[in-house]
């Protein structure tokens, strides 16, 4: 087990290394001149030269990359924002909490609704509930999150005035964004849970349990679910990554001050140090999530032994 985690951690190193190179090259390969972005397009040639040297752009790329890595790894320094001159790491740390709270709450809704509706759909297969569930999930999967957010905002914040329209602060601010973010994942989980449960219900060992005289309720809740939920947990874990992606959009709709809106603002203003840092951070997040998913899979499924 420990060996497995270790191996996976070691395996992450080359991927992260490649990602640092990609994010580093970002600044140098993308169109646009960093100096002019930082100091404005109007500066004269002389100032430009001085600044160019001061920022270290005259060094060969490997040297610059080395400096970048040392700053990052040794000093935990991700540079300064071109736009606001603020320290990137501080800003990232501040915003990280917002995004984390939002995605975790969304995941909570998604799992709560997804698993329960999925189980009902599967056990009452072809009933009116099942059909309604399937129609609504496929609809949910067809709705763009940002539009759903705008509609929720219109109805519940603007028209009914039950919630604040945007911003952050209280739990009420969190409700609409988290529902917006979670509904798509909920639909995915519903469909996945349903097919997983249906598949397990066809297994021979379920017939064995029935042949023992076990109650249908116990057959479902103990024999079927335990097996059916193993892949669901895995899938839900992987969906976490997609929630973070969705958060970029939803944060923009509700003006939620998380990492997603930070990323978009930075891209729109070509704030490269921030983009660099965020690419790294997001990559790391996904790698860690994938690792956690794999580990949890092993806890649930006795058949997996890490060797």
């Amino acid at each position, binding site marked *: 087990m420990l060996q497995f985690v270790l*191996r996976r951690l*070691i395996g992450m190193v080359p991927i992260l290394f490649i990602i640092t190179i990609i994010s580093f090259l970002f600044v140098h390969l993308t169109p646009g001149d960093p100096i002019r972005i930082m100091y404005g397009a109007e500066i004269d040639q002389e100032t430009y030269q001085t600044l160019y040297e001061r920022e270290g752009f005259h060094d060969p790329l490997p040297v610059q990359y080395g400096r970048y890595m040392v700053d990052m790894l040794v000093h935990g320094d991700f540079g300064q924002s071109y736009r606001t001159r603020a320290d990137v790491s501080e800003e990232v740390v501040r915003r990280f909490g917002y995004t984390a709270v939002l995605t975790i709450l969304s995941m909570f809704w998604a799992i709560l609704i997804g698993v329960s509706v999925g189980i009902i759909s599967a056990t009452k297969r072809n009933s009116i509930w099942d059909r309604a569930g399937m129609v609504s999930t496929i609809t949910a999967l067809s709705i763009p999150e940002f539009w759903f957010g705008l509609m929720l905002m219109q109805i519940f914040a603007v028209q009914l005035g039950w919630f604040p329209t945007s911003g952050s602060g209280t739990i009420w601010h969190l409700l609409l964004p988290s529902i917006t973010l979670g509904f798509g994942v909920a639909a995915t989980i519903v469909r996945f849970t349903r097919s997983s449960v249906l598949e397990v219900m066809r297994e021979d060992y379920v017939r064995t349990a029935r042949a023992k005289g076990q109650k249908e309720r116990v057959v479902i809740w103990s024999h079927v679910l335990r097996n059916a939920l193993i892949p669901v947990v895995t899938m839900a874990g992987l969906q976490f990554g997609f929630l973070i992606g969705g958060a970029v959009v939803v944060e923009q709709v509700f003006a939620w001050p998380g990492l997603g809106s930070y990323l978009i603002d930075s891209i729109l203003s070509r704030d490269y140090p921030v983009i660099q840092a965020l690419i790294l951070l997001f990559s790391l997040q996904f790698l860690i999530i994938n690792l956690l998913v794999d580990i949890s899979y092993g806890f649930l499924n006795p058949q997996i032994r890490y060797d």
Partner: protein
Amino acid sequence: MTQPLLDVKNLKIHFPQRKGVIKKRTTYVKAVDGISFTVNEGETLGLVGESGCGKSTTGRGITRLVPVTDGEVRYEGTDIASLSKSELREQRKNMQMVFQDPYASLNPRLTVEDILAEPLKAHGVKSRKERRERIEKMMDVVGLNRKFISRYAHEFSGGQRQRIGIARALILNPKLIIADEPVAALDVSIQAQILNLLKDLQEEFGLAYLFISHDLSVVRHLCDQTAVMYLGRMAEVGNTDKIFENPLHPYTQTLLSAIPISNPRQQKERIILQGDVPSPVDPPKGCAFVGRCPKAHDRCHSDRPELQKMGEDHYVACHLYDQN
């Protein structure tokens, strides 16, 4: 003595499995671990054994569908294991396979004509008319109605599909057919039809069969020679009648005694083995059968027995029959 049609010498097929933290330790599944046998022209050799003993892998290794780790496979004297890719394709004409599952071995998206035309196309029969003629003729031979030529494989029952599979194998006029459990998936009454067909075809075309099966009764019925495999190794080879009437290897004896006899008046004493077949990843050092053998002695644990001649056309790999 004439040259055998197929001569397999010390065939080894090992599948690597990677393990360990930085993937450096490689273990091998020793699916086939040094077996030898020959098939003569017009003759049938039955390769029997339980699941996982490597009999199917042997068949696939001979046609090089899986890479051969070591050993020789000579077809009319040419070593198949050392052929280049294009030479191999040419060679394959002489050696055709019939597979176990008549459902999986025919592409459901193709018609009978497509399926039977494929080998002809692959070996340069360009004229459509000629192909059609040969296909129709072959359908007659295996007892399929010519009218069904443009039907899809899945419209046929299991027995009929196996006839299509046999037709595909025969259409290039090979001398050797490797039949991998061709009747295992069929019901008894259909199985008899196919076995009879195989016999008829052998007589008609002078075919040699390498007949892979787990069913000893079928092997007894069809084969001139029998080779008994256990855990990737050969336990006993020889004339079928000799082996069935006088099995020498304890494993062969057990296997034969384990077969239920379809006559309640003829029930016999049974040798019941303990335990299961060990893993081919880590087979015993000495005799492969040592862990379950009721007659095992010290030597069996340490020395690997080689095939020794026990009479004309009868060989066994067992220390019980060592001369010293």
